């Protein structure tokens, strides 16, 4: 039978009636620590959902994508952080595969920015992720997931390798540690705020749909 999972009170958005929901993306290549990062600061057990990566006509054909269909499902992990009575923040994580365009569009639309998790030993794996983030015009900071005590390549070399702009923040973090993950996120948000203050925004124009 189909029955609703019973959720505790804490599963619900605290002030959902008045809060603005915003999102930040946590991106990076496979196994770089996205889920760990989200789990370390999320107030809910991180959730996962799947999106079917095909044309709508095909995607409704079979839930499991079996029987030789070309449908692919890809998981997206996310967590939540109540910021205040006015704002609730969602963190979405997904691998940076270019072929999952639809998922990227869903995730990127309206995102405040992105935190790119980088493994210093696998820098090249981060190139496609950064390309994608840039192609969606999202501002980002780099968080070097640094948990095993290996010496960190010096920042300049890393900036060069990743071809970063001078003002793109680079921080190290231990994705397993709440405070460390929060500090990386704070660095990103401070940078986004700086960017928004640099940019002279034209007066918001009324959109007429």
């Amino acid at each position, binding site marked *: 039978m189909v029955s609703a999972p019973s959720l505790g009170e804490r599963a619900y958005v605290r002030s959902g009636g008045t809060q603005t929901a915003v999102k930040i993306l946590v991106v990076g290549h496979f196994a770089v620590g996205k889920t760990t990062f989200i789990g370390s600061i999320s107030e809910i057990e991180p959730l996962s959902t799947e999106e*079917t990566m095909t044309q709508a006509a095909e995607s409704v054909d079979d839930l499991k994508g079996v029987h030789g269909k070309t449908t692919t499902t890809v998981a997206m992990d996310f967590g939540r952080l109540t910021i205040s009575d006015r704002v609730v923040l969602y963190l979405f994580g997904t691998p940076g595969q270019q072929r999952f365009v639809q998922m990227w569009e869903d995730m990127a639309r309206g995102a405040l920015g992105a935190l790119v998790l980088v493994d210093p030993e696998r820098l090249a794996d981060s190139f496609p992720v950064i390309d994608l983030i840039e192609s969606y015009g999202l501002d980002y900071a780099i968080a070097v997931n640094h948990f095993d005590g290996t010496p960190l390549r010096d920042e300049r070399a890393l900036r060069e390798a990743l071809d970063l702009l001078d003002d793109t923040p680079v921080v190290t973090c231990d994705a397993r540690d709440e405070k460390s993950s929060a500090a990386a996120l704070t660095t990103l948000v401070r940078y986004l705020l700086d960017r928004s203050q640099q940019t002279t925004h034209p007066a918001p124009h009324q959109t007429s749909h």
Partner: protein
Amino acid sequence: MTGHDGWDPEDTALVRAYVITKGRELPDEEQLSLITLVTASPGHAQRPLRLSPEEQMLLDICSAGYLSVAEIAGHTRLPLGVVRILLASLVEGGYLITRPPVAPAQLADREILEEVLNGLRAKFG
């Protein structure tokens, strides 16, 4: 033990998605984004219930407070596209109400970023 190897004819995974959605198409992205907050409308219990089991499940899960579209999909383990379609139909039927993320024009990005920054600092020091 069920004696049926756990096979249940009403198991969601065995029902084709277009059956669950009754062939309806994906709603407008803006109407139900990943972070649109959804809850049951105050009068939903008085409405005549002719809902599918999946719609009933979504309505049940939304009865106790607000959840984002993504969270509803995560908790129910239904594919996101299916959840969107079913939620859209429940909204249309007046069972659910939504709170779309506030458009940038209404609450400045900068204001939100300041709030997020202060919130993170307050929470994590």
